[in-house]
């Protein structure tokens, strides 16, 4: 999967980098789907000692076992593969609770995964600027409806229907770090019923 170049946007929109191994007392890696590739790339430049202190939490999503066996072979001190972010969340919280200052956090995969894991890590006390991210895979967005506050995962079109209240929402670049979600605003607020044709913006 090639890396996505996101077009320039407003300042609240997150920007992502490229994972690099940094020295630290531990390495917590959280990834979903093609995010595994970022970890596998990073693995080319590190030795065994690095993996001894690493903890990988991986959510394969639709990629099945395509990556999980490769990740497991890296020999991380702890490896976990789970069916969904929700399922992995308590493990992420626990891992953050148990680690000390000096632990490096690496996030890769979709924006929804990185955003939510980032919110957990910052709540645990790591400055967000110290957390590494790399986008891989789907560009689908995690959207919050500003009207009913419901969150719709993996949004690929603009506009889209809120999965909670059913309004047609315009996909904005405005991003909330706290919610780890972009904001969706009713597209036909001024002219009810006038809903533009859906465009598939994200894959």
């Amino acid at each position, binding site marked *: 999967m090639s890396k996505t170049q996101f077009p320039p946007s407003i300042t609240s929109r997150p920007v992502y980098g490229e994972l690099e191994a*940094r*020295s*630290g*007392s531990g390495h917590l890696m959280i990834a979903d789907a093609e995010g595994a590739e970022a970890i596998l790339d990073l693995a080319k430049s590190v030795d065994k000692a690095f993996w001894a202190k690493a903890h990988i939490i991986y959510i394969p999503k639709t990629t099945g076992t395509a990556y999980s066996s490769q990740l497991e072979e890296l020999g991380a001190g702890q490896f976990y593969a789970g069916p969904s972010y929700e399922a992995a969340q308590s493990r992420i919280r626990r891992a*953050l*609770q148990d*680690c*000390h*200052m*000096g*632990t*490096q956090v690496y996030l890769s995969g979709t924006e929804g995964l990185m955003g939510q894991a980032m919110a957990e890590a910052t709540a*645990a*006390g*790591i*400055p967000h*600027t*110290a957390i590494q991210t790399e986008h891989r895979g789907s560009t689908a967005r995690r959207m919050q409806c500003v009207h009913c506050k419901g969150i719709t995962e993996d949004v690929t079109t603009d506009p889209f229907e809120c999965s909670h209240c059913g309004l047609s929402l315009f996909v904005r670049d405005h991003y909330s770090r706290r919610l780890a979600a972009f904001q969706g605003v009713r597209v036909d607020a001024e002219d009810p019923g006038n809903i533009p044709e859906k465009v598939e913006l994200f894959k």
Partner: protein
Amino acid sequence: MSAGTAKLNVTVAEVKPVNDLVTRFKFVRTGGGDLPTFSGGAHTVVEMQDGDITRLNAYSLMSNPADRGAYTISVRRDDQGRGGSRFMHGRVKEGMEMVISNPVNLFSLDLRAKKHLMLAGGIGITPFMAQMHQLAMMGGHFELHYAVRTASLGTYAKELSERYPGKVHIYHDDQNEAIDLKTLLANQPLGTHVYVCGPKGMINWVHSTAGEMGWPREAVHSEEFLAPASGKPFEVKCAVSNKIVQVGEHQSLLEALEAAGIDAPYLCRGGACGQCETNVIGYDGKFLHYDHWLTDEQKAGGKHIMPCVSRFEGKTLVLDR
């Protein structure tokens, strides 16, 4: 003088020797009334009228930030210094009227931290005293590791150990006790911020050790005010005010500008805040940059100077002042 902040007229309410090197001063507002609030880590610039020289030194406020009745500072005598601390020790008496600046904080607590780990060396203890008052009031989580030369020179070490039992750890140089920094840093829970105030070597040691151990830069805080360096006298042309100013051997460029009646802003007078940054219009010679404000690139670029601590050697220096 238009400097960064407003001035306060104060009266010295108490002068108290703490040990062989350190004396404590308490200021109240002249004519009564409250002083402005400050937050832990703030400093004030004390003006000293030493004959026709006005000395201005920054000192950390060590009193309880919630107490607006008085400010307290502690001054360590530096016999090798340029004279500010000797003036404070020798000439400042109870009842004397003085002028100090409004508090400015360049070393504030990061209140997002879940725990505050404080490392002090010598007189570097003072900003932490106000911060500990503040944290104790808020129910904050903190721990102090304080390196002193000897027990008798351990300024406030005893008081602090009594005031915050279990939170204060004292290390005596003369007993070969040293902070085990690696172990200390390795065991800190996520969300800890570390603060260091003390000699330059200690500050560098904490920054580099924390960096090597993977601590985020944003979680490591330090404060160090530099004393203006002495050096060869030099001449400056001030383009805006159209004056030529001589900077003496033991005078800082900032002091020389002030003496010449040129508007020169400052907040810390110690190369840390950035307030005095001045554009260089032209020069022929070399800069002696002592500040820790400008980046290495800027220092090499020859377009900026921090007059509070930095100097110049050469033929001509033209400033945008």
